[in-house]
């Protein structure tokens, strides 16, 4: 369809986001991390898994900015490549829990008979702390990157589903839903075309927070031994491998730890900004 006027509103949202301070800061942090993660091979030239026993436990210095670990691997290289793994896991978890959570949410809002069934399942999942659930699932699925993604997504789906459901329950009482029914539009279509898009704001905000939680949770899972398997680095498993030497070689835990904090902070700032701009109460007066 040709969109001569339609994009205007989208541009306005983008303009507002650009003016929003914490969103801008968060966005710059996340964009920088993403670029660094993608460009990792061009930045270091070293292999993140190449061991050099003679170079073990070098503190940060001219040739090893972040120092080396117990196998003599360059920590900067490992943190850069770890960004790929950690950010990928976080993104996949945010997308997966966003899509599945949104579907469960609108389904239970639109088809009331499914509601109690779906929500009881969500309640059951929420009854266990997210991290416990992920540990259990991660252990059951085996030590693979995919199982970490699935475990974390399952842990975060209930919250997303509840948020989308709450939003859709409000929307479905509005007159335009009745108007759509009057026009002969089927319940499934109403769900996908009217309820879902109206829940997009809260969904997007929630997904950014899931992204941030997932970075932290990946670290926690790795620390507990059910994260992405070594030797491929993730921020979490670098810390996990370094924890036995934390007194002698502080740098092994500090640098990936800082990366985790920075990524979680950046994504939280992005989420806050999105929430401010997409909040329907603020949108009306635009």
């Amino acid at each position, binding site marked *: 369809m040709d969109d001569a006027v339609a994009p205007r*509103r989208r541009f306005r949202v983008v303009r507002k986001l650009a003016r929003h301070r914490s969103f801008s800061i968060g966005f710059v942090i996340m964009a920088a991390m993403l670029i660094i993660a993608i460009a990792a091979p061009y930045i270091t030239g070293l292999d993140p898994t190449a061991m050099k026993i003679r170079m073990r436990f070098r503190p940060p210095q001219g040739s090893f900015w972040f120092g080396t670990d117990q196998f003599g691997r360059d920590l900067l290289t490992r943190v850069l490549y770890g960004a790929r793994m950690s950010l990928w896991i976080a993104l996949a978890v945010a997308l997966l829990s966003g899509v599945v959570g949104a579907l469960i949410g609108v389904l239970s809002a639109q088809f009331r008979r499914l509601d109690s069934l779906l929500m009881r399942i969500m309640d059951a999942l929420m009854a266990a702390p997210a991290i416990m659930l992920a540990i259990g699932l991660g252990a059951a699925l085996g030590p693979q990157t995919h199982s970490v993604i699935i475990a974390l997504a399952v842990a975060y789906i209930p919250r997303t589903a509840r948020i989308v459901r709450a939003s859709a329950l409000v929307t479905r009482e509005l007159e*335009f839903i009745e*108007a759509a029914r009057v026009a*002969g*539009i089927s319940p499934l279509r109403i769900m996908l075309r009217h309820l879902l898009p109206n829940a997009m704001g809260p969904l997007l905000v929630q997904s950014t927070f899931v992204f941030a939680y997932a970075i932290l949770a990946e670290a926690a899972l790795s620390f507990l031994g059910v994260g992405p398997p070594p030797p491929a680095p993730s921020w979490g498993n670098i810390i996990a491998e370094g924890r036995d030497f934390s007194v002698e070689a502080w740098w092994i835990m500090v640098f990936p730890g800082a990366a985790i904090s920075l990524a979680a902070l950046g994504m939280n700032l992005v989420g806050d900004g999105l929430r401010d701009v997409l909040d329907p109460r603020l*949108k009306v007066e*635009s």
Partner: protein
Amino acid sequence: MTTPLLEVSDLTVRFRTDTGWMTAVDKVSLQIAPGEALGIVGESGSGKSVTALSILRLHAMATTRLPTGRIMWGGRDLLGLSMRDMRAIRGRDIAMIFQDPMSSLNPVLTIADQIGETLRLHQGLDAAASRRRAIELLDLVRIPDAARRVDEYPHRLSGGMRQRVMIAIAIACRPKLLIADEPTTALDVTIQAQILDLLRDLQAELGMSVILITHDMGVIAEFARRVMVMYAGRVVEAAPVGGLFTAPLHPYTEGLLASIPKLDVDVRRLPSIPGSIPDPTMVIQGCRFGPRCPIIEAGCRQDPMLLPAGLEREVRCPPRIAP
């Protein structure tokens, strides 16, 4: 009279409430001929909107007992149709517009999307064709600069404009019947008049029948040919507009007419009908209007019937049709 387009007979709708079953619509019958304009008037809670929604089978399934009676449309009883067949009728043969244009449009879809949705569904148009048709429709409902407006989101339009868009959506598939549920109540007086003019012109142009639901006697006088007055879920009087306004029969109708402010008469207090509409869960013996009625008599204790009272007129009031 020609064959009616829509014939509702003895429609009864009951809702479940916390305190038991309430009858929202009690044996309502109505007919509407092709191209006719029928007004339904009554205060809030009189069952007029429920009647309209029932014609389209759009009540909350969980709390409604299946309506009884018959709703004949093109030789079929709408109450007996499958949901699928019913959806094919909604929006294509029977369309409806609502009171509040501010909340009747989806805030996240453009006007083109929302008009196009019905066109694509019922007429199988593709995106480009439905957009062209949407622009034509906006022209038809007299929205200036339609080609530009069609890509806007609802929040950029005023209430009157949104109601015009709602009308455009409603007439998109050239329905045979348009149900307008308080279409002007939420609008400014000047806009009200424009919207009514528009509806009247469209009715003539497209040859559709219109059921106009309102509590505003003035709107009825301007728009409808025939009027049904509803009270507490029942039809209390049905008459051509002229007759009803010059010589109302039911005391409730009299009360409604008396409470219209008049510009040429100076009154301190507008006359009102004492009391209020009864709680629908309560059972009232005899005439429902009895407790508020100035002319109640012994004959009103038995449930009065809706009886013929002159040409095309019916009234449910024994004192007024006593021989």
